[in-house]
């Protein structure tokens, strides 16, 4: 196992280096340096101001040298300074944007996969029955819907016509004007509390399997749920900052719903295909023969095995969050990593763009790696072969 991980790691590092270099070349190759253009197109700027601005960003050096300096800094942990928002450090830009992206997409992915997996299970279980086609067509339509358009239509409907949710943004100024903490801090607190509760319930339930009597197991599990959810509510309801958390939560509703709507169908279709394959397996028949209820057969046997490709796709989806966030974030006015990526590429702000590229690249690499590992965890058959 150790050797395998090591080999993978070396591969990942090499792949990343190539990726890094290629990204840089691609960004560098964009015709016209927009930073320089912007400066040059301003008749008020004397030439020396332009030269100076270029020098400060290191743009006066030949590209190869720029690349060398940039690479050296990058791998020693210095992401450099934004060109378009000079002299803001790239790392601070990312630190500002990342929590928002994490908040929005962690919740959205959670819903996407919950809804999608359940729907897919249902669909496979009802194969060739009424409703299957309707759900498939509805799902595919949502899956392939022109997303920016759909998002805007949803804003029009739920935010404008019905006024149920805010139209855009992630906070409301009137609530936050005197806020004692930043929105990012709040989001991280919300995110952490969610994670902690989930981890607590998960771990307790997992640990309860050790208990001997079934009744004890049930009690502990129930207790974990009650305690976890209870603690969550008690914590937030007694929290002085509840109003801020609520504001963020309200702003999350529409983007998360829309993301769920357009994303769940993909998961649903994966689950369905995978379930249909699994359902032909003999062990499903065995499970039925054992007298398990249909729900138990479906959830413990058919779906549990079908979970493999779904979990893999979840991990890989996490890896594409930033790229996928470009549209979502611009439609819902949610200034996260996606918008940063878009803006930096359009402005040819190479340090920021390259950092964002690298970030997605690393996420993708880790995602693929995690998918492999997860596959091994979920499918004991792989666990052995991957060691060999």
């Amino acid at each position: 196992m150790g050797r395998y991980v090591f080999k993978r790691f070396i591969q990942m590092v090499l792949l990343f280096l190539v990726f890094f270099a290629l990204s840089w070349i691609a960004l560098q190759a964009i015709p016209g340096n927009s930073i320089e253009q912007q400066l040059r197109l301003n008749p008020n700027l004397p030439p020396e101001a332009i030269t100076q601005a270029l020098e400060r960003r290191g743009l006066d050096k030949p590209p190869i040298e720029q690349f060398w300096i940039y690479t050296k800094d990058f791998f020693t942990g210095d992401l450099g300074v934004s060109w378009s928002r000079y002299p803001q450090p790239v790392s601070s830009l990312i630190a500002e944007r990342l929590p928002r992206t994490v908040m929005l997409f962690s919740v959205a992915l959670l819903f996407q996969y919950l809804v999608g997996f359940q729907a897919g299970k249902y669909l496979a279980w009802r194969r060739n029955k009424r409703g299957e086609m309707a759900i498939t067509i509805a799902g595919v339509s949502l899956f392939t819907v022109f997303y920016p358009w759909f998002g805007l239509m949803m804003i029009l409907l739920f935010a404008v016509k019905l006024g149920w949710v805010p139209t855009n943004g992630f906070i409301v100024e009137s609530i936050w004007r005197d806020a004692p903490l930043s929105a990012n801090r709040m989001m991280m607190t919300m995110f952490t509390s969610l994670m902690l509760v989930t981890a607590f319930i998960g771990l307790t339930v997992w640990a309860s399997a050790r208990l001997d009597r079934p009744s004890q197991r049930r009690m502990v599990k129930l207790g974990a749920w009650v305690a976890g959810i209870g603690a969550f509510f008690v914590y937030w309801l007694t929290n002085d900052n509840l109003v801020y958390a609520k504001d963020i939560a309200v702003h999350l509703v529409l983007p998360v719903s829309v993301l769920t709507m357009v994303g769940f169908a993909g998961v649903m279709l994966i689950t369905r295909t995978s379930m249909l394959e699994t359902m032909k397996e003999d062990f499903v028949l065995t499970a039925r023969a054992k007298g398990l209820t249909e729900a138990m057969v479906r959830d413990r046997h058919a779906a549990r095995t079908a979970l493999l490709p779904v979990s893999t796709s979840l991990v890989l989806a996490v890896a594409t969050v930033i790229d996928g966030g470009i549209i979502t974030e611009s439609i819902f006015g949610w200034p996260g990593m996606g918008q940063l990526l878009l803006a930096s590429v359009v402005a040819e702000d190479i340090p920021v763009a390259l950092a964002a590229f690298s970030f997605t690249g690393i996420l993708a690499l880790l995602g693929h790696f995690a998918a492999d590992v997860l596959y091994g965890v979920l499918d004991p058959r792989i666990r052995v072969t991957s060691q060999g």
Partner: protein
Amino acid sequence: MDTLQAPEESEIPGDVELRLQHEPLWRIRVRLMQKSFKANWKLFKRNKVGVVGLVIIIMFAILGIAQPILFATGVWDKRVYDVRTGNDNRERIAEMTVVANVDDVVDPNTQIDRRRLIAEGKNAEIGDVIQRELKHPWPPDRNHLLGTDPNGSDILSQLMFGARAAFGLGLLAATVTVFIATTVGSVAAYFGGWVDSFFMRFADLLLMLPILAVLIVASSFGRFKLWHLAIFLGLLGGFGGTAIVLKSQALSVKVKPFIDAARVAGGNNWRIVTSHLIPNVMPLSFLYVMFSVTGAISSEAVLSFLGLLNIDMSWGLMINKTQSAGYLLNPSTWWLIVPAGLAVTLLAGAFYLAGRGMDEIINPRLRNR
């Protein structure tokens, strides 16, 4: 990685050729294709999802073909209906009374308040009856079945042009994707070793890229035309994810006895790849054509929507123009946004549905018991 697993069996058994050697090969192939087409068509027809997709595709194809016909037959005047320069400037006049208060406006088409008049840069006194030109966008009527855009250009004509663009782009991108992916996948599977490693690592590399951002980078390369985009998307997909899927399919074909048989018979490697491996990967490749079209249409629409493509007209551009002119969230000018958005959704969805329909035939694991 992908929902679709490689089928375990190929549609055309490899040993058919041996059995029917007295007939010319092409005739056998044609007959086999006819036969399998008929059989598959029957299967496909049973799956209503696929049929729905196909019907929508055909509808849009007709729409795309209709436009040049309308121009050629003179039903449509180029000066009015051309998507680039056409505009309908027949004057539409409405009489209106200038009122002091917006609340006094009875019929918004015939009366107008003073503020609006000021906004449009005309001078009039309260109580005047003046003639006002109705400006584009016009709602749908007899001449313009889907209305006009803010420049007075016909929406239906743009939609038709967009259909052609979408088909052209989608099919070109898909063809490139599948051609490359099939070749790469088969070669990587057959030769294995460093060839395999090289292509698969390359595929990994492409999968790491933030696609939309890369497309934005690509689109900033000068005169990035629609067919450039198509080929670019084709290359990305062909060397990327699709190659991986088709490789796993090719792997499962590679271990089939007839490949060994061909090898034992002294077949040259390339010949085995081209005449045995690739034909047996083809059914799945064809399936990926469908999915690639969906991807290409959506990508183009997103890029156009972001205003990053320098093209004449497309559905995404229609939405982009609507948005930049400020009509996007205006329900009263629905014809600017609904047809285009729906078209992208429908056509992309239709190819996907058709693909799913085919999937049920091609993928033996999904076949009904």
